[in-house]
């Protein structure tokens, strides 16, 4: 329960950071997709199920405030979290290079799907233009921010993991 609450709190704080990014750092033009970093990190660090839930809830929050189709972002983030969950237990250290790579791929995939649904399917063209002005800059920015945020999430997850182990070691405290 404590674990779930901690993870939920991480999602909410990340969402708040992302939505107020422009106000706190006024000079920046492109906002990194911090929720995607969280989703990918959780998938890699905690497995398919966690990645899926984190993606689902992050997406719902985004849809709730800024979505055009309610449930669309939730659906894609959920699959991103789930698929990144396949990397779980393939590596354990704090090395941020592999998460960086998969965050980059995930961000590109998400934004290309976003483009297809919101623009291409509505008869608007210009993929090259969008790729240059929106998709690529966001992917690069998000990949750079992964360095910092993956380390933060890694440290928090270590704490959560320690808490879980403690609970398992004392059977009378089990739910």
């Amino acid at each position: 329960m404590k674990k779930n609450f901690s993870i939920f709190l991480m999602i909410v704080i990340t969402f708040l950071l992302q939505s107020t990014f422009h106000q706190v750092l006024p000079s920046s033009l492109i906002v990194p997709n911090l929720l995607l970093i969280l989703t990918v990190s959780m998938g890699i660090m905690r497995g398919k199920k966690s990645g899926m839930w984190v993606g689902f809830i992050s997406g719902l929050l985004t849809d709730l405030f800024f979505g055009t189709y309610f449930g669309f972002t939730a659906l894609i983030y959920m699959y991103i979290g789930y698929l990144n969950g396949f990397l779980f237990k393939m590596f354990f250290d704090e090395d941020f290079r592999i998460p960086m790579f998969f965050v980059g791929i995930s961000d590109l995939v998400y934004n290309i799907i976003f483009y297809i649904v919101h623009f291409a399917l509505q008869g608007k063209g210009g993929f090259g233009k969008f790729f240059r002005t929106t998709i690529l800059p966001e992917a690069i920015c998000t990949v750079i921010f992964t360095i910092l945020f993956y380390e933060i999430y890694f440290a928090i997850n270590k704490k959560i993991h320690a808490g879980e182990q403690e609970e398992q070691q004392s059977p009378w405290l089990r739910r």
Partner: protein
Amino acid sequence: MKKRKGYHVKSKYLLAILTIVCISLISLTVTETVSITPIREAAGVLIVPMQSGINKIGDWINGQHIGRKSARELAEENEQLKTRISELEEQNTVLTQNEQELNDLRALYNLDQGYTGYDKVAASVIAKDTGNWFNSFTIDKGSDDGITVDMNVISAGGLVGIVTAVGTNWATVRSIIDDGNSISGMILSTSDPCIVNGNMDLMEEDKMSFGNLTTDADITPGEQIVTSNISDKYLPGILIGYIDSIEDDSNHLAKTGYLIPAVDFHNIQTVLVIKQVKESGAQ
């Protein structure tokens, strides 16, 4: 081993359930069978105060350098401002007299007073869209202050956008510079109608494009484009921007060009929401 296998099946199973949940959510809200407004409101009540808080921190960080100004500098500035106030007060008196005259003349001509006459509510921008696709943002006033969907939003005398969603203490505004957004406008001096479009490419250069302008008059850069009477969502007479360049279409029937919006979209802190929706205004 057995337990791990069970875990796998379960996560796949859960993925399938959540996929169905998402797809039904999308289809239910797209077809407007179910409204998510109540959930939006509930979430807003929790999230918006926190966003406001972070903004205050941001303002505080940005405002830090003011604290370092010396008392002498501040005193000097104060002195300058005081003289400026007295100047403005003088001007104000003259303008008030002029306004009275203007109102009388307007009444004579039976003209609309423009958007200065509408009831407005001021709001602060507290959050931006989490993605980089759309230019929407959240403001800290909502239905409690009488804001409803489709109300026009202005800032510094120019059109900013339109309210797209409302909660009790927040509202989402979609800016006019958004890609694919089009507004029916007109040239202020000649009242010739045109269509103003937002465009992703031009957004970078802080410009918008306009087209379908048929006119015999000689329109030069610098002229104002305002919202027209025939616009279905925007109130008439709100300044959109100034013409940057203008040229003939290839068929020489109409003119197209670019305009610079009156509002600096990179730096919007406070906005005014006009508490009048176009439809009700027409009644």
